[in-house]
């Protein structure tokens, strides 16, 4: 039953461009990008118990590095992508050393402060980042000579990257290391007493999350062919965090569902009203007050309840 559902879902995902219009294909690509970003944040929030409010840093910095290298210095997309991802991962390692001096709310405040610093830099260093104008006129890469300019080809590209990311992060979370991460989340002192190094476990997770955050940033800049400081803003971090928490942090599929919902909400709401930030704030209040464990765990609870009732 489970396998049939998975196969159906996979077929639906792969075949989507054959029956959907360009608008929906593009929407699906955006959902994939948001999903991989939310999944990487979920490693920190859900499995590690480290609530980061600065995860947009990794998306934004990877996007900026790639944009600058390809547009200003004329690099090819391949080397630019390598530099961008490794640079972002190195930044995550550095930020991790700073932020992981604290836990809990201190961690949250430090990640927020660090990301605000980057956001300020992107705005103010206008001779490098072009400031509020952003960097426009970017191109998409051509892996193996295949153009990604059509909506469908980019969708498949994003789908492949997302599936690889989903698998890699699932393996990470369900591995022995993932178990020790959950142990550190719940009982850091017991884990330390058992001979684990909580700090190192958190740090490695932080870097890994930064890596996938950077990957989503590359997809983001390829998709939009444009980058603006808002992608580094707290709003951007908060949207991802809302997706993770709304979907259900610490579950495998929750962040994907949550990210998709936030993105759809944003797309449809902005067609009718301009007040996205206010709506985002209200949704935050609603989710936290009404559905604190998230949609996926909530639905699962409901489903098991129904099964038991019908039996």
């Amino acid at each position, binding site marked *: 039953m489970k396998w049939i559902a998975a196969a159906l879902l996979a077929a639906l995902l792969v075949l989507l461009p054959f029956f959907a219009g360009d608008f929906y294909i593009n929407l699906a690509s955006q959902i994939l990008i948001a999903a991989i970003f939310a999944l990487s944040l979920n490693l920190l929030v859900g499995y590690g118990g480290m609530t980061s409010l600065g995860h947009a840093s990794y998306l934004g910095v990877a996007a900026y590095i790639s944009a600058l290298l390809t547009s200003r210095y004329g690099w090819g997309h391949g080397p630019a992508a390598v530099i961008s991802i490794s640079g972002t991962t190195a930044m995550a390692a550095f930020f991790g050393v700073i932020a992981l001096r604290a836990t809990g709310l201190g961690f949250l405040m*430090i990640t927020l402060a660090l990301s605000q610093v980057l956001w300020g830099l992107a705005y103010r260093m206008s001779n490098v980042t072009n400031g509020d104008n952003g960097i426009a006129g970017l191109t998409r890469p051509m892996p193996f000579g295949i153009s990604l300019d059509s909506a469908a080809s980019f969708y498949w590209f994003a789908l492949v990257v997302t599936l690889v990311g989903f698998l890699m992060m699932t393996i990470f979370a369900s591995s022995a290391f993932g178990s020790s991460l959950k142990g550190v989340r719940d009982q850091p002192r017991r884990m330390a007493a058992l001979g684990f190094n909580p700090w190192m476990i958190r740090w490695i997770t932080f870097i890994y999350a930064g890596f996938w955050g950077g990957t989503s940033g590359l997809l983001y800049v390829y998709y939009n062919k444009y980058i603006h400081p808002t992608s580094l803003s707290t709003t951007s971090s908060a949207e991802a965090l809302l997706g993770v*928490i709304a979907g259900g942090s610490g579950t495998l599929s929750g962040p994907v569902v949550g990210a998709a919902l936030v993105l759809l909400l944003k797309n449809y709401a902005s067609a009718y009203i301009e007040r996205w930030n*206010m709506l985002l704030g209200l949704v935050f209040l609603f989710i936290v007050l009404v559905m*604190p464990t998230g949609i996926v765990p909530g639905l699962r609870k409901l489903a098991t309840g129904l099964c038991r009732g019908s039996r």
Partner: protein
Amino acid sequence: MQFWIIQGLNSLSLGGLLFLLSSGFSLIFGLMRLANLTHGAFFMLGTYFGATALRSYDGLNIWVTALGAGIAVAAIGGLFERLVLTRLKTNPLGQVLVTLGMSFIISDACLLLWGGDSIPVPTPQNLQSPTRVLGFVFPTYRLVLVGCAVGAAIVLYFLLERTRLGAMIRAGVDDRQMARAVGIPVSNLFTLVFCLGAGIAGAGGVLGGPILSAYPGLDADMLPLALIVVILGGIGSLLGAFIGSFIIGFIYTYGTALFPELAYIILFLPMIFVIAFRPQGLFGRVGA
């Protein structure tokens, strides 16, 4: 020479503003274990209230305005605390998230009500003429602002250290459960301290208006400064907030004047140093 001295004064006045912002943040954090991310928005709300009042009524006293705006913002903060935050007592992460959500709501509401253009706030007329000290010319308002912050610090110090209320707050900071057990109404204290912190931020917003003017994004500019001050000075410590505010005031002002593009990086260097060598902050206690 003139440059250094004028920038020095600017640093002091920014430091004073930062103290008005971060002292409330630090108090709230110390007592409630709550990172109140709405704090920048409270500050901005105060600035907008002040701008509207001062521009529509000529000759309105800025101190009265600051008091009024402070009370208004404190009321909004109190409502928020009573209606939302108290429901999330057992969920510290949820509390932070709703304060973040609230900050989005407030800043977007300000954008809706006051538009996207920045609104300058007039400097009070009796403080417009410059002051001459030792042959140097200073903008009087900034000097007064520094005095204000120092005054607020002294009042807060006495409130916390010399009154019964302050003793109860300190007891709540040190050990919430024991404080409850000896009959201190900690929940009411929470509301009170939240109102107090929000009110100081709102009043600070009015006083900062003539220097910063009211614009959308003011909250996002001020909140990280407050966070850095509090991380630097030590969470929950009034002295830490005071010293940290002036350190950041100096670093940010000179950084912006000397290396405008790198000001943000320079700003976070001291924070890194402090976190690396003294994670609890300069004046924080271990485990805060």
